[in-house]
């Protein structure tokens, strides 16, 4: 028997994290869920075991605690085949405009932490010569918008980090996927006005991450419509863009 493949989901308790874990478990992966509150992950672990009869491990991981990253990675029983970072924090743009601490948390949660941890995993995977890294970024990183540029800029940094890492890692047998989900109905977007046809449910994102890994895609927009929307938004001249209420 060949041993089963393994996936680690960083940010395992988010709606997208749960959905991704389910998609991979369904495809036969054993799963490691990592999050700030391990006890809160227990029911999700039980869910995966009951549904798919897979092995599930739980690990404590805090994306803001960068000092713990090396110990965290070295403490895992085995290096996973697939590493997915779904960690992120939308925050409140209005508050971030004047509250430096809040702005810092948004920036660190979406750029610094995810980039550092995936970078660290990448070194290990490159040393082994196989593996896949998945970073869940955002269409918000494609162009800064008046309504959420603190978050968007951090996601932009993360997207750039991933594309650079991809270029380098591909020469070493390691594949890097950037996922841009667009609007997703989750806890994070609850109460927000989302545009129906551009909005997907978390399981759709979970499925998209799995197929991106299996198909070795580079950058995936979960809903194809977003690729077009962002292409238009990215190419609008700044003079026009700044006048748009967006």
């Amino acid at each position, binding site marked *: 028997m060949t041993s089963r493949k393994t996936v680690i989901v960083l940010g395992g308790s988010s709606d997208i994290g749960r959905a991704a874990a389910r998609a991979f478990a*369904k495809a036969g992966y054993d799963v490691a869920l990592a999050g700030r509150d391990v006890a809160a992950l227990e*029911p999700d672990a*039980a*869910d995966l075991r*009951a*549904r*798919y*009869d897979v092995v599930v491990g739980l690990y404590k991981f805090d994306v803001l605690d960068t000092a713990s990253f090396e110990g965290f990675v070295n403490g895992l029983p085995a290096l996973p085949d697939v590493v997915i970072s779904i960690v992120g924090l939308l925050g409140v743009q209005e508050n971030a405009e004047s509250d430096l601490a809040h702005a810092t948390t948004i920036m660190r949660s979406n750029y610094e932490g995810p980039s550092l941890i995936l970078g660290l995993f990448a070194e290990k995977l490159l040393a082994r010569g196989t593996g896949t890294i998945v970073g869940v970024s955002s269409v918000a990183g494609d162009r800064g918008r008046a309504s959420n540029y603190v978050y968007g800029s951090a996601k932009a940094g993360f997207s750039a980090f991933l594309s650079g890492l991809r270029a380098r890692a591909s020469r070493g047998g390691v594949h890097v996927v950037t996922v841009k989900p667009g609007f997703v109905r989750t*806890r994070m977007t*609850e109460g927000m006005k989302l545009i129906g046809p551009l909005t997907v449910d978390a399981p759709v994102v979970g499925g998209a991450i799995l197929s991106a890994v299996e198909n070795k895609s580079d950058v995936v927009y979960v809903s194809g419509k977003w690729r077009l929307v962002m292409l238009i938004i990215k190419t609008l001249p700044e003079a026009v863009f700044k006048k748009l209420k967006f």
Partner: protein
Amino acid sequence: MTLVSGWGRFPVVDSELLRPRSFEAVGEAVVTGSVARGNGRAYGDAAIGAVRTVAMTGFDRVRSFDPVTGRIRLEAGVLLSDLIDTFGPRGFLPFVVPGTRFVSVGGAIAADVHGKNHHCEGGFGRYVDSILLRTGQGETIEASREENSDAFFATIGGMGLTGIILEATMRLRTVETGWIRERVISASDLDAAMGALDAGDSSTYSVAWIDCAARGRDLGRSLIYLGEHAGRGELAEGIDVFPSGKNPGLAVPFDLPAMTLNRTSVRAFNELYYRMGARRAGGSHVVSLYPYFFPLDAIADWNRIYGRRGFLQHQCVIPQAGARAVLGEILGRVAARGDASFLAVLKKLGQGDGILSFPLPGYTLALDFPVKGDIMNFLDEIDHLVVAAGGRLYLAKDARQSRATFEAGYPALQRFNAIRRSLDPAGNIRSKLSQRLFDEV
């Protein structure tokens, strides 16, 4: 406040919609006038809180599963579609499924839903062993046939009025495949249709689709679909043992003008449907469980076909004795109106399990009507026929029956109300439906 409606999109009313993330938050969400909502597939006002509606679909975790016994413990927001997709390939399916798979376990318990097998296997509640219930009084209790049995039997079919179901333990059936061996019988009139259903009593699944535009001698002409779970040996070489259930591809993008549904279009559709089905009649063949159980799920948002004002479903059950005459009278009036349902569904039911469960031994007829014109009066007249025959209407489909119709149809109501009062003396749990039909005024 948010505008909320059921699947029929009538009525549309204000109710605060809350999406708690933990069981503690569910408890805190309950204020006077709250009711749970599953996936909103009840047609009328059952899943709309008088003041606040507590959405439960976020609770979608399976707690445990025993692959030897098929026993499963899960949160009430798990959808049957999810259960089928997850456990079907492992050889397990729910014992009972309604005509859409997009219902939650909580909603299926609260309505004690019936499937095409009610006549021989009973309703959804029969396969539920216990529930974790958050009562209106603020207690969280485990209820089963042995423990808190009053609460248990009042919750099955109790339309959410005993409290909020948080978790349930139920049994799944083992199947060899995800395929159904189907036999189609064409019946030229109502007598033949009822006869074919009676003859199909020993089939696990049976249902009739009636052409309700047919009149006179053709009144009640229909196609009867009988079904059994197919074994591996019945599948052609190379076929997937468990077919995949694609998510709805086609969607109805906007409300069709009510004009689209008129005498001519309905008649033409029914004629075509009947002829195509009749051609398949006779032999038996193997079909995927998805089109067999959930024919309408292939088209997302099909409720928009009926236009912006929404539509009503009228589903009654008539006790066996005397059913022929009443069903004939109802179908005759519907056919004479001409603008009725696309298709009517006729099937046999057995005894219900919950105190307020809809099923009773007899025939159930389900009809759809767009909300327009004198439809309310027309349906009131139909209700008189139903009540006179000792029948009742299904609360999960209702948006308009009168208190008198309801009270006449559900003689166990007193007992239900007494249990409800003991679980919720202050009357915190109230839906638009309960305000319309149950609560003291």
